[in-house]
Protein backbone atom coordinates (compact mmCIF):
# COMPACT_ATOMS: atom_id res chain seq x y z
CA UNK A 1 0.00 0.00 0.00
CA UNK A 2 1.43 3.37 -0.95
CA UNK A 3 1.54 6.36 1.35
CA UNK A 4 -1.41 8.12 -0.29
CA UNK A 5 -3.61 5.05 0.05
CA UNK A 6 -2.63 4.80 3.70
CA UNK A 7 -3.65 8.41 4.25
CA UNK A 8 -7.07 7.77 2.74
CA UNK A 9 -7.96 4.83 4.96
CA UNK A 10 -10.59 5.54 7.58
CA UNK A 11 -9.98 5.09 11.28
CA UNK A 12 -12.09 1.93 11.15
CA UNK A 13 -9.92 0.49 8.36
CA UNK A 14 -6.64 1.59 9.94
CA UNK A 15 -7.59 0.17 13.30
CA UNK A 16 -8.16 -3.26 11.79
CA UNK A 17 -4.73 -3.13 10.13
CA UNK A 18 -3.10 -1.94 13.36
CA UNK A 19 -4.67 -4.76 15.33
CA UNK A 20 -3.45 -7.27 12.76
CA UNK A 21 0.00 -5.59 12.97
CA UNK A 22 -0.03 -5.00 9.22
CA UNK A 23 0.74 -1.35 9.73
CA UNK A 24 2.26 0.53 12.66
CA UNK A 25 1.24 3.85 14.20
CA UNK A 26 4.68 5.20 13.30
CA UNK A 27 4.17 4.42 9.60
CA UNK A 28 0.75 6.03 9.75
CA UNK A 29 1.89 9.20 11.45
CA UNK A 30 4.94 9.60 9.21
CA UNK A 31 2.81 9.21 6.10
CA UNK A 32 0.39 11.87 7.29
CA UNK A 33 3.13 14.30 8.31
CA UNK A 34 4.67 13.91 4.85
CA UNK A 35 1.30 14.60 3.29
CA UNK A 36 0.83 17.70 5.43
CA UNK A 37 4.25 18.96 4.29
CA UNK A 38 3.44 18.25 0.67
CA UNK A 39 -0.06 19.70 0.52
CA UNK A 40 -0.29 22.42 3.10
CA UNK A 41 1.48 25.09 1.05
CA UNK A 42 -1.49 24.74 -1.30
CA UNK A 43 -4.36 24.11 1.15
CA UNK A 44 -3.33 26.00 4.29
CA UNK A 45 -5.21 23.55 6.50
CA UNK A 46 -2.96 23.95 9.54
CA UNK A 47 -1.90 26.75 11.83
CA UNK A 48 0.42 24.50 13.85
CA UNK A 49 1.84 21.09 12.95
CA UNK A 50 3.05 18.95 15.87
CA UNK A 51 5.54 16.74 14.05
CA UNK A 52 7.86 15.85 16.92
CA UNK A 53 5.09 15.35 19.45
CA UNK A 54 3.15 13.20 17.00
CA UNK A 55 6.14 10.97 16.27
CA UNK A 56 6.80 10.55 20.00
CA UNK A 57 3.15 9.70 20.58
CA UNK A 58 3.26 7.19 17.71
CA UNK A 59 6.27 5.46 19.27
CA UNK A 60 4.41 5.24 22.57
CA UNK A 61 1.33 3.91 20.82
CA UNK A 62 3.36 1.29 19.02
CA UNK A 63 5.02 0.21 22.23
CA UNK A 64 1.69 -0.01 24.04
CA UNK A 65 0.13 -2.05 21.28
CA UNK A 66 3.13 -4.38 21.17
CA UNK A 67 2.69 -4.90 24.91
CA UNK A 68 -0.91 -5.83 24.33
CA UNK A 69 -2.39 -2.62 25.66
CA UNK A 70 -4.61 -1.76 22.74
CA UNK A 71 -6.88 1.17 23.60
CA UNK A 72 -9.42 0.77 20.84
CA UNK A 73 -10.22 1.92 17.34
CA UNK A 74 -8.59 5.35 17.64
CA UNK A 75 -5.27 4.05 18.98
CA UNK A 76 -2.52 5.37 16.74
CA UNK A 77 -4.91 7.36 14.55
CA UNK A 78 -3.84 10.87 13.43
CA UNK A 79 -6.28 13.63 14.31
CA UNK A 80 -6.35 17.39 13.86
CA UNK A 81 -8.04 19.82 16.24
CA UNK A 82 -9.40 23.17 15.17
CA UNK A 83 -7.11 25.83 16.60
CA UNK A 84 -9.50 26.89 19.30
CA UNK A 85 -9.39 23.58 21.17
CA UNK A 86 -6.65 23.89 23.79
CA UNK A 87 -3.81 21.39 23.76
CA UNK A 88 -1.38 21.70 26.64
CA UNK A 89 1.93 23.26 25.67
CA UNK A 90 0.75 24.14 22.16
CA UNK A 91 -0.15 27.48 20.60
CA UNK A 92 -3.89 28.14 20.67
CA UNK A 93 -4.51 31.11 18.36
CA UNK A 94 -8.28 30.78 17.85
CA UNK A 95 -7.50 31.95 14.34
CA UNK A 96 -6.29 35.38 15.54
CA UNK A 97 -2.73 36.60 15.06
CA UNK A 98 -3.30 38.53 18.26
CA UNK A 99 -3.01 35.19 20.08
CA UNK A 100 -0.14 33.90 17.98
CA UNK A 101 2.06 33.45 21.04
CA UNK A 102 -0.62 32.17 23.39
CA UNK A 103 0.26 28.68 24.61
CA UNK A 104 -2.43 26.59 26.33
CA UNK A 105 -1.65 25.46 29.87
CA UNK A 106 -4.09 22.53 29.78
CA UNK A 107 -5.87 20.16 27.45
CA UNK A 108 -9.46 20.75 26.45
CA UNK A 109 -11.86 17.92 27.33
CA UNK A 110 -11.89 16.61 23.77
CA UNK A 111 -8.09 16.46 23.58
CA UNK A 112 -7.99 14.58 26.87
CA UNK A 113 -10.61 12.09 25.74
CA UNK A 114 -9.03 11.56 22.34
CA UNK A 115 -5.63 11.00 23.92
CA UNK A 116 -7.16 8.54 26.40
CA UNK A 117 -8.55 6.69 23.40
CA UNK A 118 -5.03 6.56 21.94
CA UNK A 119 -5.51 9.12 19.16
CA UNK A 120 -2.49 11.16 18.12
CA UNK A 121 -2.85 14.91 17.66
CA UNK A 122 -0.81 15.89 14.59
CA UNK A 123 -1.76 19.54 14.45
CA UNK A 124 -4.09 22.47 15.01
CA UNK A 125 -6.21 23.36 12.03
CA UNK A 126 -6.97 26.74 10.51
CA UNK A 127 -10.15 28.63 11.29
CA UNK A 128 -11.85 31.95 10.74
CA UNK A 129 -10.85 34.31 13.57
CA UNK A 130 -12.71 33.23 16.73
CA UNK A 131 -14.74 30.90 14.47
CA UNK A 132 -17.01 33.85 13.68
CA UNK A 133 -18.08 33.23 10.07
CA UNK A 134 -18.47 30.36 7.63
CA UNK A 135 -16.69 31.67 4.52
CA UNK A 136 -13.60 33.40 3.20
CA UNK A 137 -15.25 36.48 1.83
CA UNK A 138 -13.66 39.44 3.53
CA UNK A 139 -10.06 39.45 2.44
CA UNK A 140 -7.18 37.39 3.71
CA UNK A 141 -7.75 35.98 7.19
CA UNK A 142 -5.11 36.12 9.90
CA UNK A 143 -3.69 32.73 8.92
CA UNK A 144 -4.70 32.85 5.26
CA UNK A 145 -7.53 31.36 3.25
CA UNK A 146 -8.48 27.74 3.79
CA UNK A 147 -8.68 26.06 0.39
CA UNK A 148 -10.85 23.24 -0.83
CA UNK A 149 -8.97 20.03 -1.80
CA UNK A 150 -11.48 19.45 -4.62
CA UNK A 151 -10.42 22.75 -6.16
CA UNK A 152 -8.16 25.14 -4.26
CA UNK A 153 -9.77 28.16 -5.93
CA UNK A 154 -12.86 27.45 -3.85
CA UNK A 155 -13.45 27.81 -0.12
CA UNK A 156 -13.34 24.79 2.14
CA UNK A 157 -16.18 26.30 4.18
CA UNK A 158 -15.96 27.46 7.72
CA UNK A 159 -15.36 28.20 10.29
CA UNK A 160 -13.77 24.76 10.67
CA UNK A 161 -12.36 25.09 7.15
CA UNK A 162 -8.90 23.80 8.03
CA UNK A 163 -10.47 20.75 9.66
CA UNK A 164 -12.50 20.19 6.49
CA UNK A 165 -9.59 20.47 4.07
CA UNK A 166 -7.24 18.42 6.28
CA UNK A 167 -9.63 15.46 6.55
CA UNK A 168 -10.68 15.63 2.90
CA UNK A 169 -7.08 15.78 1.66
CA UNK A 170 -5.90 12.89 3.80
CA UNK A 171 -3.69 15.09 5.95
CA UNK A 172 -5.43 13.60 8.99
CA UNK A 173 -7.69 10.60 9.32
CA UNK A 174 -10.23 12.74 11.10
CA UNK A 175 -10.57 16.17 12.63
CA UNK A 176 -12.57 18.04 15.25
CA UNK A 177 -14.41 21.30 14.69
CA UNK A 178 -16.78 23.63 16.46
CA UNK A 179 -20.27 24.40 15.18
CA UNK A 180 -22.11 27.56 16.23
CA UNK A 181 -24.13 28.04 13.05
CA UNK A 182 -22.98 25.16 10.89
CA UNK A 183 -19.20 25.25 11.21
CA UNK A 184 -18.77 21.47 11.35
CA UNK A 185 -21.46 20.64 8.78
CA UNK A 186 -20.69 23.36 6.21
CA UNK A 187 -17.01 22.48 5.64
CA UNK A 188 -17.91 18.79 5.77
CA UNK A 189 -20.49 19.23 3.03
CA UNK A 190 -18.27 21.45 0.89
CA UNK A 191 -15.30 19.09 1.21
CA UNK A 192 -17.17 15.78 0.76
CA UNK A 193 -16.99 14.61 4.37
CA UNK A 194 -19.26 13.26 7.04
CA UNK A 195 -19.71 15.84 9.81
CA UNK A 196 -21.74 15.50 12.99
CA UNK A 197 -23.00 18.25 15.24
CA UNK A 198 -24.04 16.31 18.33
CA UNK A 199 -26.88 17.30 20.67
CA UNK A 200 -26.17 20.37 22.78
CA UNK A 201 -24.62 19.08 25.99
CA UNK A 202 -23.52 15.73 24.54
CA UNK A 203 -19.86 16.66 23.98
CA UNK A 204 -17.96 18.80 26.46
CA UNK A 205 -16.77 22.19 25.31
CA UNK A 206 -14.39 22.62 28.22
CA UNK A 207 -11.18 24.20 26.99
CA UNK A 208 -12.36 25.56 23.70
CA UNK A 209 -12.61 29.24 22.90
CA UNK A 210 -16.30 30.15 23.12
CA UNK A 211 -18.19 32.29 20.66
CA UNK A 212 -21.81 31.89 21.75
CA UNK A 213 -22.45 29.83 24.88
CA UNK A 214 -25.91 28.66 23.94
CA UNK A 215 -25.14 27.90 20.28
CA UNK A 216 -21.61 26.43 20.46
CA UNK A 217 -21.19 22.71 19.84
CA UNK A 218 -18.18 20.50 19.06
CA UNK A 219 -18.09 17.52 16.72
CA UNK A 220 -16.13 15.34 14.30
CA UNK A 221 -15.37 15.69 10.59
CA UNK A 222 -14.56 12.29 9.08
CA UNK A 223 -14.47 10.35 5.83
CA UNK A 224 -17.02 7.77 6.96
CA UNK A 225 -20.02 7.48 9.22
CA UNK A 226 -18.30 4.67 11.08
CA UNK A 227 -15.49 7.05 11.99
CA UNK A 228 -18.03 9.57 13.27
CA UNK A 229 -19.43 6.87 15.53
CA UNK A 230 -15.95 5.88 16.71
CA UNK A 231 -15.08 9.49 17.58
CA UNK A 232 -18.38 9.96 19.39
CA UNK A 233 -17.65 6.83 21.45
CA UNK A 234 -14.48 8.56 22.60
CA UNK A 235 -15.62 12.15 23.14
CA UNK A 236 -19.29 12.00 24.20
CA UNK A 237 -20.29 12.03 27.83
CA UNK A 238 -20.93 14.15 30.88
CA UNK A 239 -18.29 16.63 31.99
CA UNK A 240 -18.91 18.79 35.05
CA UNK A 241 -16.39 21.29 33.71
CA UNK A 242 -18.85 22.31 30.98
CA UNK A 243 -21.95 23.88 32.58
CA UNK A 244 -24.04 22.84 29.58
CA UNK A 245 -22.92 19.23 29.70
CA UNK A 246 -25.78 16.75 29.99
CA UNK A 247 -25.68 13.72 32.27
CA UNK A 248 -27.22 11.37 29.76
CA UNK A 249 -26.05 7.83 29.14
CA UNK A 250 -23.81 7.38 26.11
CA UNK A 251 -24.48 4.32 23.93
CA UNK A 252 -21.98 2.48 21.75
CA UNK A 253 -22.68 4.41 18.56
CA UNK A 254 -21.19 1.74 16.30
CA UNK A 255 -24.07 -0.56 17.27
CA UNK A 256 -26.43 1.71 15.33
CA UNK A 257 -24.59 1.03 12.08
CA UNK A 258 -26.70 -1.93 11.05
CA UNK A 259 -27.53 -0.90 7.50
CA UNK A 260 -31.20 -1.59 8.24
CA UNK A 261 -33.45 1.47 8.11
CA UNK A 262 -36.70 -0.23 7.23
CA UNK A 263 -39.62 1.57 8.81
CA UNK A 264 -37.72 4.75 9.63
CA UNK A 265 -39.90 7.83 9.14
CA UNK A 266 -38.13 10.82 7.60
CA UNK A 267 -39.72 14.24 7.20
CA UNK A 268 -38.82 16.84 4.60
CA UNK A 269 -40.07 20.22 5.85
CA UNK A 270 -41.70 22.01 2.95
CA UNK A 271 -40.24 25.29 4.16
CA UNK A 272 -36.78 23.94 3.29
CA UNK A 273 -37.74 23.90 -0.35
CA UNK A 274 -39.29 27.37 -0.29
CA UNK A 275 -35.93 29.06 0.27
CA UNK A 276 -33.26 29.60 -2.40
CA UNK A 277 -31.76 26.29 -3.57
CA UNK A 278 -29.42 25.45 -6.44
CA UNK A 279 -30.96 23.06 -8.95
CA UNK A 280 -28.03 20.63 -8.80
CA UNK A 281 -28.37 20.39 -5.03
CA UNK A 282 -32.12 19.86 -5.37
CA UNK A 283 -31.52 17.05 -7.85
CA UNK A 284 -29.01 15.33 -5.57
CA UNK A 285 -31.40 15.55 -2.62
CA UNK A 286 -34.19 14.03 -4.70
CA UNK A 287 -31.89 11.16 -5.66
CA UNK A 288 -30.91 10.69 -2.01
CA UNK A 289 -34.58 10.52 -1.05
CA UNK A 290 -35.03 7.84 -3.66
CA UNK A 291 -32.14 5.81 -2.23
CA UNK A 292 -33.47 6.11 1.33
CA UNK A 293 -36.90 5.09 0.12
CA UNK A 294 -35.45 2.03 -1.62
CA UNK A 295 -33.78 1.12 1.66
CA UNK A 296 -37.17 0.99 3.35
CA UNK A 297 -37.47 4.44 4.92
CA UNK A 298 -40.63 6.46 4.44
CA UNK A 299 -40.13 10.06 3.39
CA UNK A 300 -43.03 12.45 3.83
CA UNK A 301 -43.50 16.18 3.47
CA UNK A 302 -43.92 17.90 6.84
CA UNK A 303 -44.08 21.48 8.02
CA UNK A 304 -41.86 23.48 10.34
CA UNK A 305 -43.26 27.01 9.98
CA UNK A 306 -41.02 28.69 12.53
CA UNK A 307 -37.97 27.67 10.50
CA UNK A 308 -38.46 30.91 8.59
CA UNK A 309 -37.55 32.86 11.74
CA UNK A 310 -34.38 30.93 12.50
CA UNK A 311 -31.98 33.34 10.80
CA UNK A 312 -33.41 36.20 12.85
CA UNK A 313 -33.33 34.29 16.11
CA UNK A 314 -29.83 32.93 15.66
CA UNK A 315 -28.55 36.26 14.31
CA UNK A 316 -29.65 38.09 17.45
CA UNK A 317 -28.47 35.44 19.90
CA UNK A 318 -25.10 35.02 18.23
CA UNK A 319 -24.53 38.76 18.03
CA UNK A 320 -25.41 39.33 21.69
CA UNK A 321 -23.54 36.34 23.11
CA UNK A 322 -20.42 36.88 21.01
CA UNK A 323 -20.29 40.50 22.16
CA UNK A 324 -20.73 39.48 25.79
CA UNK A 325 -18.10 36.78 25.39
CA UNK A 326 -15.44 38.94 23.78
CA UNK A 327 -16.29 42.50 24.80
CA UNK A 328 -12.98 43.06 26.56
CA UNK A 329 -11.10 41.76 23.55
CA UNK A 330 -12.99 44.16 21.28
CA UNK A 331 -12.58 47.06 23.69
CA UNK A 332 -8.87 46.66 24.39
CA UNK A 333 -7.51 45.05 21.24
CA UNK A 334 -10.17 45.79 18.65
CA UNK A 335 -7.70 47.45 16.29
CA UNK A 336 -5.67 44.25 16.13
CA UNK A 337 -8.62 42.11 15.04
CA UNK A 338 -9.65 41.28 11.48
CA UNK A 339 -11.94 44.22 10.62
CA UNK A 340 -15.20 42.29 10.04
CA UNK A 341 -14.70 40.41 13.30
CA UNK A 342 -14.20 43.69 15.13
CA UNK A 343 -17.39 45.15 13.67
CA UNK A 344 -19.43 42.08 14.46
CA UNK A 345 -18.22 41.92 18.07
CA UNK A 346 -18.63 45.63 18.72
CA UNK A 347 -22.04 45.94 17.10
CA UNK A 348 -23.42 43.36 19.51
CA UNK A 349 -22.83 45.85 22.32
CA UNK A 350 -25.65 47.99 20.90
CA UNK A 351 -28.25 45.26 20.70
CA UNK A 352 -31.18 45.96 23.06
CA UNK A 353 -31.62 43.40 25.84
CA UNK A 354 -35.29 43.12 24.87
CA UNK A 355 -34.30 41.82 21.45
CA UNK A 356 -32.13 39.12 22.98
CA UNK A 357 -34.91 38.07 25.34
CA UNK A 358 -37.45 37.99 22.53
CA UNK A 359 -35.06 35.87 20.50
CA UNK A 360 -34.74 33.39 23.36
CA UNK A 361 -38.53 33.25 23.66
CA UNK A 362 -38.88 32.66 19.95
CA UNK A 363 -36.24 29.96 20.27
CA UNK A 364 -38.42 28.23 22.86
CA UNK A 365 -41.32 28.20 20.39
CA UNK A 366 -39.09 26.82 17.65
CA UNK A 367 -37.70 24.09 19.91
CA UNK A 368 -41.21 23.02 20.96
CA UNK A 369 -42.34 22.97 17.34
CA UNK A 370 -39.29 20.88 16.41
CA UNK A 371 -39.99 18.42 19.25
CA UNK A 372 -43.61 18.10 18.19
CA UNK A 373 -42.57 17.42 14.61
CA UNK A 374 -40.15 14.74 15.75
CA UNK A 375 -43.04 12.91 17.38
CA UNK A 376 -44.44 12.40 13.88
CA UNK A 377 -41.17 11.43 12.21
CA UNK A 378 -37.80 10.09 13.34
CA UNK A 379 -35.59 12.43 11.35
CA UNK A 380 -35.68 15.62 9.32
CA UNK A 381 -33.94 15.78 5.96
CA UNK A 382 -32.56 18.74 4.01
CA UNK A 383 -29.61 19.79 1.93
CA UNK A 384 -26.70 20.76 4.18
CA UNK A 385 -25.86 23.81 2.10
CA UNK A 386 -28.03 25.14 -0.77
CA UNK A 387 -24.99 25.58 -3.03
CA UNK A 388 -21.61 23.99 -3.60
CA UNK A 389 -18.42 25.72 -2.43
CA UNK A 390 -18.09 29.30 -3.59
CA UNK A 391 -14.96 30.86 -5.04
CA UNK A 392 -12.58 32.42 -2.56
CA UNK A 393 -13.45 36.10 -2.30
CA UNK A 394 -16.90 35.69 -3.81
CA UNK A 395 -19.42 37.93 -2.04
CA UNK A 396 -22.79 37.64 -3.74
CA UNK A 397 -24.03 34.31 -5.01
CA UNK A 398 -26.74 33.21 -7.35
CA UNK A 399 -28.68 30.53 -5.50
CA UNK A 400 -31.43 29.21 -7.73
CA UNK A 401 -33.32 32.29 -8.86
CA UNK A 402 -32.15 34.41 -5.94
CA UNK A 403 -29.06 36.53 -5.53
CA UNK A 404 -27.92 36.43 -1.93
CA UNK A 405 -24.97 37.09 0.32
CA UNK A 406 -22.42 34.35 0.68
CA UNK A 407 -22.75 33.99 4.46
CA UNK A 408 -26.54 33.81 4.46
CA UNK A 409 -26.41 31.24 1.68
CA UNK A 410 -24.05 28.94 3.51
CA UNK A 411 -25.84 28.99 6.87
CA UNK A 412 -29.38 28.64 5.52
CA UNK A 413 -30.02 25.06 6.62
CA UNK A 414 -27.71 24.86 9.62
CA UNK A 415 -28.58 27.43 12.26
CA UNK A 416 -31.94 25.79 13.06
CA UNK A 417 -30.19 22.86 14.75
CA UNK A 418 -27.89 25.12 16.74
CA UNK A 419 -31.00 26.84 18.04
CA UNK A 420 -32.86 23.70 19.12
CA UNK A 421 -29.64 21.85 19.90
CA UNK A 422 -30.70 18.67 18.09
CA UNK A 423 -28.12 16.34 16.52
CA UNK A 424 -27.51 16.84 12.80
CA UNK A 425 -25.18 15.05 10.41
CA UNK A 426 -24.07 15.74 6.87
CA UNK A 427 -23.14 12.90 4.55
CA UNK A 428 -21.88 13.18 0.95
CA UNK A 429 -24.73 12.78 -1.56
CA UNK A 430 -23.31 13.87 -4.90
CA UNK A 431 -21.06 16.14 -6.90
CA UNK A 432 -21.79 19.18 -9.03
CA UNK A 433 -20.86 19.44 -12.70
CA UNK A 434 -17.80 21.36 -11.51
CA UNK A 435 -16.77 18.35 -9.43
CA UNK A 436 -17.60 19.92 -6.07
CA UNK A 437 -19.20 17.87 -3.27
CA UNK A 438 -22.82 18.09 -2.14
CA UNK A 439 -24.09 17.19 1.34
CA UNK A 440 -27.29 15.68 2.70
CA UNK A 441 -28.30 16.77 6.22
CA UNK A 442 -30.22 14.51 8.61
CA UNK A 443 -31.33 15.77 12.02
CA UNK A 444 -32.83 13.79 14.86
CA UNK A 445 -34.28 13.93 18.34
CA UNK A 446 -32.19 15.21 21.26
CA UNK A 447 -29.54 12.68 22.31
CA UNK A 448 -30.55 10.31 19.52
CA UNK A 449 -27.30 10.54 17.56
CA UNK A 450 -27.58 6.79 17.06
CA UNK A 451 -30.60 7.17 14.78
CA UNK A 452 -28.90 9.92 12.81
CA UNK A 453 -25.79 7.79 12.38
CA UNK A 454 -27.86 4.71 11.51
CA UNK A 455 -29.59 6.35 8.56
CA UNK A 456 -26.50 8.22 7.38
CA UNK A 457 -24.53 4.98 7.44
CA UNK A 458 -27.17 3.01 5.55
CA UNK A 459 -27.28 5.72 2.88
CA UNK A 460 -23.49 5.89 2.70
CA UNK A 461 -23.13 2.14 2.29
CA UNK A 462 -25.54 2.18 -0.65
CA UNK A 463 -23.68 4.96 -2.48
CA UNK A 464 -20.06 5.60 -3.30
CA UNK A 465 -19.81 9.37 -2.90
CA UNK A 466 -17.73 9.04 0.27
CA UNK A 467 -15.15 6.88 -1.50
CA UNK A 468 -14.14 9.56 -4.00
CA UNK A 469 -10.88 11.38 -3.47
CA UNK A 470 -9.85 14.83 -4.62
CA UNK A 471 -7.03 14.71 -7.17
CA UNK A 472 -4.36 16.60 -5.31
Amino acid at each position, binding site marked *: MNSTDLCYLTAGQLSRLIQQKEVSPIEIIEAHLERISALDPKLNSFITVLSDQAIDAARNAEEEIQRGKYRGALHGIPVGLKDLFAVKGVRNSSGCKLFDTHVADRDCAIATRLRNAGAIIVGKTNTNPLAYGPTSDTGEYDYGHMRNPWNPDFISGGSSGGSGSAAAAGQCTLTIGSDTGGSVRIPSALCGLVGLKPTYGRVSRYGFTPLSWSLDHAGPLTRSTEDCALVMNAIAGYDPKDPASAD*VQVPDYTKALTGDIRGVQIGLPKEYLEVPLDSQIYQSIQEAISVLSDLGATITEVSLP*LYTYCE*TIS*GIILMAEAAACHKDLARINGAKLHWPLRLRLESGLFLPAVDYIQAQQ*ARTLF*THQSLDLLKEVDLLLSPTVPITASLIGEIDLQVGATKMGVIAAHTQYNAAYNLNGFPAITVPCGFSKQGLPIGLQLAGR*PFDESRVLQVAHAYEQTTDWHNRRPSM
Partner: protein
Amino acid sequence: MSKELRFSKETFFYLAERAGLDIENPHMEELYTYVKIILPRLKGFDESNIFNENTDDGRFYAYAKRILPKLKPLDELDLDGVELAVTFKPSRSQEDE
Protein backbone atom coordinates in the same frame (compact mmCIF):
# COMPACT_ATOMS: atom_id res chain seq x y z
CA MET B 1 -42.70 48.04 4.97
CA SER B 2 -40.30 50.92 5.24
CA LYS B 3 -39.64 51.78 8.83
CA GLU B 4 -36.62 53.70 9.94
CA LEU B 5 -34.73 52.98 13.10
CA ARG B 6 -34.23 56.21 15.01
CA PHE B 7 -30.71 55.87 16.33
CA SER B 8 -28.93 59.20 16.54
CA LYS B 9 -25.21 59.60 16.56
CA GLU B 10 -25.47 61.07 20.04
CA THR B 11 -27.25 57.96 21.29
CA PHE B 12 -24.66 55.78 19.61
CA PHE B 13 -21.75 57.61 21.22
CA TYR B 14 -23.46 57.55 24.61
CA LEU B 15 -23.92 53.78 24.42
CA ALA B 16 -20.43 53.28 22.99
CA GLU B 17 -18.87 55.11 25.89
CA ARG B 18 -20.92 53.13 28.39
CA ALA B 19 -19.73 49.92 26.69
CA GLY B 20 -16.14 51.00 27.24
CA LEU B 21 -15.30 51.78 23.63
CA ASP B 22 -12.92 54.61 22.80
CA ILE B 23 -15.26 57.19 21.31
CA GLU B 24 -12.35 59.35 20.16
CA ASN B 25 -11.18 56.58 17.83
CA PRO B 26 -11.91 57.32 14.14
CA HIS B 27 -13.10 53.71 13.84
CA MET B 28 -16.28 54.79 15.64
CA GLU B 29 -17.60 56.32 12.42
CA GLU B 30 -17.29 52.94 10.69
CA LEU B 31 -18.95 51.21 13.59
CA TYR B 32 -21.79 53.74 13.62
CA THR B 33 -22.43 53.07 9.94
CA TYR B 34 -22.42 49.34 10.52
CA VAL B 35 -24.68 49.43 13.56
CA LYS B 36 -27.18 51.64 11.72
CA ILE B 37 -27.50 48.89 9.13
CA ILE B 38 -27.41 45.81 11.31
CA LEU B 39 -29.92 46.83 13.97
CA PRO B 40 -32.75 47.64 11.55
CA ARG B 41 -32.12 44.39 9.72
CA LEU B 42 -32.58 42.43 12.90
CA LYS B 43 -35.95 44.11 13.34
CA GLY B 44 -36.94 43.35 9.79
CA PHE B 45 -36.82 47.02 8.79
CA ASP B 46 -35.96 48.16 5.31
CA GLU B 47 -32.75 50.11 5.65
CA SER B 48 -32.60 51.14 2.00
CA ASN B 49 -33.69 54.64 2.92
CA ILE B 50 -30.74 55.00 5.24
CA PHE B 51 -27.81 54.10 3.02
CA ASN B 52 -27.07 53.04 -0.47
CA GLU B 53 -24.09 51.28 -1.94
CA ASN B 54 -22.78 54.39 -3.69
CA THR B 55 -21.94 56.19 -0.49
CA ASP B 56 -18.56 56.17 1.16
CA ASP B 57 -20.02 53.66 3.56
CA GLY B 58 -20.43 51.09 0.80
CA ARG B 59 -17.90 48.65 2.25
CA PHE B 60 -19.78 48.36 5.52
CA TYR B 61 -23.14 48.37 3.80
CA ALA B 62 -22.07 45.48 1.59
CA TYR B 63 -20.62 43.58 4.52
CA ALA B 64 -23.71 44.07 6.66
CA LYS B 65 -25.90 42.81 3.85
CA ARG B 66 -23.87 39.63 3.68
CA ILE B 67 -23.94 39.06 7.40
CA LEU B 68 -27.70 39.06 7.59
CA PRO B 69 -30.18 38.44 4.82
CA LYS B 70 -33.65 39.97 4.77
CA LEU B 71 -35.00 38.77 8.07
CA LYS B 72 -38.47 38.07 9.38
CA PRO B 73 -39.11 40.25 12.43
CA LEU B 74 -39.83 38.49 15.70
CA ASP B 75 -42.51 41.10 16.41
CA GLU B 76 -44.72 39.00 14.14
CA LEU B 77 -44.73 36.21 16.73
CA ASP B 78 -46.95 36.05 19.79
CA LEU B 79 -44.37 35.74 22.54
CA ASP B 80 -46.61 36.63 25.48
CA GLY B 81 -45.91 34.24 28.33
CA VAL B 82 -43.31 32.24 26.44
CA GLU B 83 -40.40 31.27 28.65
CA LEU B 84 -36.82 31.95 27.75
CA ALA B 85 -35.21 29.14 25.85
CA VAL B 86 -33.67 26.41 27.88
CA THR B 87 -31.82 24.11 25.59
CA PHE B 88 -33.11 20.57 25.80
CA LYS B 89 -31.22 18.90 28.60
CA PRO B 90 -32.95 16.01 30.33
CA SER B 91 -31.64 14.69 33.59
CA ARG B 92 -30.79 11.03 33.78
CA SER B 93 -34.02 10.38 35.70
CA GLN B 94 -36.08 11.96 32.90
CA GLU B 95 -34.27 9.83 30.38
CA ASP B 96 -34.98 6.66 32.34
CA GLU B 97 -38.69 7.44 32.30
